[in-house]
């Protein structure tokens, strides 16, 4: 059986040229725009209150954020390797690598929770000031995507058609892509 069997089933016009389900690519584009607007809003507020933003940003754990970047790109590698094995119709290895990607995603959430717990222990909440409101909004919204992505990886590992695995992995890489932009914008730029 050809590995491009689904080409004959779904004709999405120009969108058929994209890897995986084209609907996922529409989601990726829309998520990039939504997060892009959030980051632009955050940076505009930074312009309005530079002192407050820099003082507040210096209270973030930049090392934890950097560590989480490495955790997420490593998880992305696992998801990409799962797609590689899916092409070879190796179900066991596909599932193992998807599970590994999800497990590393959990490590990301644990580090994120430690960061949040530290903030809460210092009475820093979304109500503290506008910087922390945007910090919790952007990172919390991203963390929700990570939680959803982990479930999605488990589901596509179970129902592992070519399209499901590629689409689930694409969502996971989108989560990765957004964090790669989020980290310097929220944690580092000053």
């Amino acid at each position: 059986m050809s590995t491009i069997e689904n080409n004959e089933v779904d004709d999405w016009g120009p969108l058929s040229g994209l890897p995986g389900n084209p609907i996922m690519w529409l989601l990726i584009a829309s998520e990039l725009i939504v997060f892009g607007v959030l980051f632009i809003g955050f940076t505009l507020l930074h312009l309005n209150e530079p002192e407050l933003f820099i003082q507040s940003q210096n209270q973030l754990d930049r090392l934890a954020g950097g560590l989480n970047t490495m955790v997420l790109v490593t998880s992305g590698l696992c998801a990409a390797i799962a797609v590689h094995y899916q092409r070879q119709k190796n179900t066991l290895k596909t599932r193992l690598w998807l599970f590994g990607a999800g497990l590393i995603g959990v490590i990301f959430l644990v580090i994120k929770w430690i960061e949040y717990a530290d903030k809460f222990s210092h009475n820093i909440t979304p109500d503290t000031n506008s910087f922390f409101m945007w910090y919790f909004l952007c990172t919390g919204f991203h963390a929700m995507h990570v939680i959803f992505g982990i479930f999605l990886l488990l589901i596509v590992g179970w129902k592992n058609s070519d399209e499901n695995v590629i689409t689930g992995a694409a969502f996971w890489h989108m989560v990765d892509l957004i964090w790669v932009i989020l980290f310097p914008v929220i944690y580092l730029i000053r």
Partner: protein
Amino acid sequence: MQLSSYPSIRTLICVWLLLIVLSAGTLFTGGVTTSETIGIWGGTALFAITFFKTKLILNYYLDLKSAAGNWNTLFSSLIFLILLILFGLYSVSVFS
């Protein structure tokens, strides 16, 4: 759905290593252990590294380099535009 030429494991690992090195570069450029501002050149380097990292994820993890048509250019341009606006706003904050 296209599934014709996905990168080899060796290529994916090389991309991952590059992403890890670039992430370390992001930490270094972003002055992770200091509270001083990073300045316009630090900011320029940070945005350049970020764009390069997103290109690696798009091209290899998401396999957009093998996509038919101009999808790679389209998605890269979208990210470039977002980063350009953010860099422009950052530049204003540095020089104001």
